[in-house]
């Protein structure tokens, strides 16, 4: 029932309002989500947040109606500017074709199902992140307590070494002042200035309040599952047990923590 009311709240408020009324949204979420999360976190010693993406569910849902809720929510609450130029755009959560998402996996004759279909892409919050290894100021770092790869926008010197290091294209640089490109400002989350790198933060600000990441929260198809990889009973581990999953560029040894059910 709570679930239903939350959905209708989002529907009524419209996703774009998420930014402005962030506090209230969070309060609603907080009331519903706390229990599950804390239990999961306590159950395991090593906490590593991970995500399982079931694109089939997303595509099935999209056959009925096109949906960009996850991306709209993510970019809305994180003040991600909307820049049309593909050379300068900022992306936290986005989609691309199978052959682009998994360039080493594909062949010429993919199943009709996957052909031309979008895959949801985001920072993989790697277990062995090259971006963190190369950063000369520790402006990007892997949080020891939960494995989230974070960015300190105030420490970043804008050398873009992390962008050369990331094999997933998950990092975006602010080639210009992003503020004029933010449609509606969410006062609960910082904006960035020109000259710094940014990326998905697994909604660290929401995790701190025991909330799921916004994309997981708003997905009507329930295609996104978030949980602790270190906990054998967590929902992500359950899915990994039940399905054959792949990760992007597994062979590079980065240890991505976003899994795709195929």
């Amino acid at each position, binding site marked *: 029932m709570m679930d239903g009311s939350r959905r209708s709240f989002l529907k009524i408020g419209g996703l774009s309002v998420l930014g402005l009324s962030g506090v209230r949204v969070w309060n609603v979420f907080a009331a519903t989500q706390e229990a599950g999360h804390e239990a999961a976190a306590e159950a395991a010693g090593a906490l590593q947040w991970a995500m399982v993406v079931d694109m089939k569910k997303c595509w099935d849902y999209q056959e009925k109606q096109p949906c960009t809720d996850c991306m709209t929510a993510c970019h809305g609450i994180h003040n991600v500017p909307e820049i049309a130029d*593909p*050379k*300068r*755009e900022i992306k936290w959560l986005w989609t*691309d074709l199978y*052959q*682009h*998402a998994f*360039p*080493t996996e594909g062949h010429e004759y993919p199943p009709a199902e996957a052909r031309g279909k979008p895959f949801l892409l985001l920072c993989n919050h790697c277990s062995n992140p*090259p971006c963190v*290894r*190369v*950063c*000369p*100021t*520790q*402006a990007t770092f892997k949080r020891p307590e939960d494995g989230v790869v974070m960015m300190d926008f105030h*420490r*970043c*010197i*804008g*050398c*873009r*070494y992390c*962008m*050369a*290091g*990331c*094999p*997933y*294209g998950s990092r*975006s*640089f*602010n*080639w*210009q*002042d992003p503020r004029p490109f933010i449609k509606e400002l969410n006062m609960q989350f910082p904006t960035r200035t*020109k*000259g*710094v*790198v940014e990326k998905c933060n697994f909604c660290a600000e929401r995790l701190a309040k025991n909330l799921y990441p916004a994309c997981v929260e708003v997905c009507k198809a329930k295609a996104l599952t978030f949980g602790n990889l270190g906990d054998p009973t967590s929902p992500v581990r359950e899915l990994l047990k039940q399905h054959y999953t792949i990760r992007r*560029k597994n062979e*590079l*040894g*980065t240890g991505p923590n976003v899994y795709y059910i195929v």
Partner: protein
Amino acid sequence: MLEKALEGSKSYWRLLVTLLVLAGIGFGCYLLQLNQGLRITGMSRDVSWGFYIAQFTFLVGVAASAVMVVLPYYLHHVKVFGKITILGEFLAVASVTMCLLFIVVDLGKPMRLLNVLLYPTPNSVLFWDMVVLNGYLFLNIVIGWTVLGAERKGVAAPAWVKPLIYLSIPWAVSIHTVTAFLYAGLPGRHFWLTAILAPRFLASAFAAGPSLLILLAYFVRKRSKFDPGDEAFEKLSQVVAYAMCVNVFFVLLELFTSFYSGIPSHMEGFIYQFSGLEGHGKLMPFMWLSAILSVIAVLMLLSKKKRSQEKTLKIACVLVFIALWLEKGLGLVITGFIPNPFNTVTEYWPTFPELGITIGVYATGFLVLTVLYKVAIAVKEENL
């Protein structure tokens, strides 16, 4: 000693003013970049390093010229280099100055530069690059200035400078190695992900640096009473010849591994450079030019008779320098980003303000070089 740079001929002052004007134009473009952000450059989400970092990489190599005269002189007592070690050291100072400036102009937040010192991060190669580059700059300024000062007074250089000179030799190797490590350790950038990148950097550096030094030394001989001596040119041309051959050999090794293995990610960079990838081939003419010039230069340098003729040697040095600039100062960095992580191609081309800043940094470097060479030559002329 610096006062020697304050008196000179009309053409000396004309050169200084020209360089100052160019540096000023570059600074103007940089103010625009500070105000607008790096969007005034041709760089993009996919090709996130461009001309600045490429020039930085190439110039780290030019700084090599110092070690190629210092090492034979101090370790092998090749006396003919005695006169020109100072030219090599001061060229290194100017080159490293340009390297550091190119890093600064590439930063999105240059005012936060000192964060690198405030939060030293040993796991970052960029941190070590900062250490070795600044160290090399310091070593060459101190060594060059001290030895020249002693020469001016007609006394032997102080004993404490000797250990610094010996230290500067492995240090020169370290700047190229660490700079190669910036690239050679990144998963997913297959064009750079090769153990031979550091040796390649060293080989191309030991060819490009000394060939510029030869050209500068000829210029100095023409414009002043100071003559480095024919033997110095002969020995330096040997260095260039060997290094250039080794460099070409290393490139062929890369091509073998990439194309015999047939692994697409290893071939794509070279395919992009020489025949274009997915219909994109902006670098093609430049890479072919680089390859052709390299072959011609090697053929010219191989014959001892040919390279001992001043005119031939000058042409060969120009060819080597252009070929390696195209290879390292244009092709190497950009191609590392092609194809991008999604296996598609986004091309890069520098913009006018970006070129303006680049020319400004080069002008600043050559301004430093001109002043330092003026001092060095004045001291040498005094002692004739």
